[in-house]
């Protein structure tokens, strides 16, 4: 076969090229006695250490500065980020990460700020914490905010700790919590950490939660409900207020998973929806980079009634000065060693200051515009299980491709050959073979059109040259990896250097 036949159209459009360097593992390089950073000369006498405490030298490879720089530069070239191309990963909001945010977080007096200094020495960072709390309260419609949680799931845990402390304070602890079947896995896992037994709420045939069903499950042993709105099908839960009223009537609380906030900034008022606690993912909605897995930040926003339960310390303003309030008897306590992922908070703060109110609202409008546009342009070739206006993401399935024995995974892998990061696949679980596309507002119309055309080409290839999909990706550093082998015989650390040589 010619190259055109083996790779299809992939090499004529974006695709990936050929400049991929091989690079061994760190400990397969280097030579004893090299060093990649300068250690200052000692200006003090050597001290004596009790010999029984002294260990042997750690078995790290010795590398020069050039070794280290080339190593990581090459590794980085095997990676794909938002700066490389479109990253339509549903539920993850892979929007552009502004460069100025990085600069602001690296401001020396801020990057070097020590968290244990007295308040009077840290007015700049405390003011930033206080102002960001205020901004996020404004944006969500809720009253008070803690910036401590280090990630979305950490925010959920904090929220569940608040639920638990609230019910305890009311004098009657509860043991169950309602969680829709469309929820992220973090929801039940977070609730379980607080001893709440997850009760699944089935979503209706239209992808929506049914208030009657919630009413039938909600009782006085149920702490409340955790819901994601817009939900993980990318649909707005239209009867959220009714659901919240049912839960409140039985003394329960409503937790809002704000993972999908990027759809509804300036549109949804969480308090009016009846939400009592909401977490935000600053690494989604507020443009801070995902870092290949983190760090994120997952602030929790609460109503006035729940404010006393927020984690301590809290940044407060007293006249012209900013202080840390520690002594709050109802607080759930501390969920982070210091003030959360402060560096991430600086980036989100910078984003909000850059965007302003109108910019943030516009971002949500355009995110929703992009998702609906993709939905409309692909629904004739990809099966759309819930055909209704979506929010910032749309969910297709591989039902139309089953005759050709092509799965969502195959289409996802084929997208890689065309230079796209695949969408989220096989989530939410309620859609068999789900493919969840979230373009975000960062992508312009031409790039979205190109993406749509590419997916249509792939659907065509599925019919005519299915092996192109089964064999994809072909142009990456590695091809499909044996995950079964990885799990059966886990190799989680490299061999000691001595055994290598």
């Amino acid at each position, binding site marked *: 076969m010619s190259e055109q036949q083996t790779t299809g159209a992939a090499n004529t459009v974006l695709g990936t090229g050929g400049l991929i360097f091989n690079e061994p593992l760190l400990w397969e390089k280097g030579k004893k006695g090299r060093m990649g950073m300068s250690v200052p000369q000692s200006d003090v006498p050597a001290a004596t250490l009790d010999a029984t405490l002294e260990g042997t030298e750690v078995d790290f490879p010795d590398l020069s500065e050039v070794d280290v720089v080339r190593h990581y530069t090459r590794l980085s070239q095997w990676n794909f980020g938002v700066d490389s191309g479109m990253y339509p990963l549903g539920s993850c909001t892979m929007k552009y990460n502004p460069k100025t945010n990085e600069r602001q977080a690296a401001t020396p007096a801020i990057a070097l700020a020590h968290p244990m200094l007295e308040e009077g020495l840290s007015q700049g960072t405390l003011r930033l914490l206080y102002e960001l709390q205020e901004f996020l309260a404004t944006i969500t419609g809720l009253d008070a905010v803690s910036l401590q949680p280090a990630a979305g799931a950490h925010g959920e845990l904090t929220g569940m700790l608040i639920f638990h402390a609230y019910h305890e304070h009311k004098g009657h602890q509860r043991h169950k919590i309602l969680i829709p079947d469309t929820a992220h896995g973090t929801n039940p896992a977070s609730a379980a950490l607080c001893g709440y037994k997850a009760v699944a709420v089935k979503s209706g045939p239209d992808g929506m939660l049914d208030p009657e069903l919630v009413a039938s499950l909600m009782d006085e042993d149920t702490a409340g409900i955790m819901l994601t709105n817009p939900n993980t099908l990318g649909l707005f839960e239209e009867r959220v207020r009714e659901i919240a009223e049912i839960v409140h009537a039985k003394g329960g609380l409503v937790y809002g998973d704000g993972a999908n906030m990027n759809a509804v900034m300036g549109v949804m008022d969480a308090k009016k929806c009846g939400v009592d606690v909401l977490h935000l993912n600053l690494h989604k909605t507020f443009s801070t980079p995902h870092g290949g897995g983190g760090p994120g930040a997952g602030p929790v926003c609460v109503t006035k009634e729940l404010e006393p339960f927020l984690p301590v310390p809290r940044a407060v303003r007293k006249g012209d000065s900013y202080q840390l309030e520690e002594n709050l008897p109802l607080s759930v306590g501390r969920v982070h060693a210091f003030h959360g992922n402060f560096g991430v908070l600086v980036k989100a703060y910078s984003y909000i200051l850059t965007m302003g109110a109108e910019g943030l609202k516009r971002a949500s409008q355009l995110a929703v515009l992009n998702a609906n546009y993709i939905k409309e342009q692909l629904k004739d070739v990809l099966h759309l299980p819930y055909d209704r206006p979506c929010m910032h993401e749309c969910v297709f399935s591989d039902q139309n491709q089953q005759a050709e024995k092509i799965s969502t995974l195959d289409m996802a892998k084929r997208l890689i050959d065309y230079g796209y990061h695949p969408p989220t696949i*096989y989530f939410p679980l309620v859609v068999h073979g789900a493919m969840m596309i979230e373009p975000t507002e960062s992508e312009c119309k031409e790039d979205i059109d190109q993406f749509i055309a590419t997916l249509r080409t792939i659907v065509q290839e599925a019919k005519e040259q299915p092996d192109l999909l089964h064999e994809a990706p072909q142009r990456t550093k590695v091809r499909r990896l044996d*995950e*079964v082998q*990885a*799990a*059966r015989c886990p190799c989680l650390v490299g061999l000691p250097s001595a055994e290598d040589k």
Partner: protein
Amino acid sequence: MKEIDELLLPEDLGYTDDHEWAQKTGETFRVGVSDYAQDQLGDIVFVELPEVGDSFAKGDECGTLESVKAVSELYTPLSGEVVAVNEALTDNPELINEDPYGAWILEIKPSAPAEFDTLHKAAAYLEMLKG
């Protein structure tokens, strides 16, 4: 994945709604998972076994099977005490994929042997799978 009529379903076994099987071996019963279960789960990468001496009531969770991206609980088809577990599965969980009826998971000394008669016969189990 296999079509329903490609599945192997030996006649002498009893089957559960959750796709376990039980087979009488003298005074005890061996327990495993059906061809359908292993096929649905795909490549099995890990088996969590109960401990010898553990006692379970029929339907209790007594172990788990894991594939790369799924976890499936194992429920005992009969009440009783575990008298043996198939240690070979610890290092070679793929034996279940290769031979789901040879690769028994645990052996149970039943406290109510008559429970075996309440399990599905092969034909009835097949009907259930066909829906």
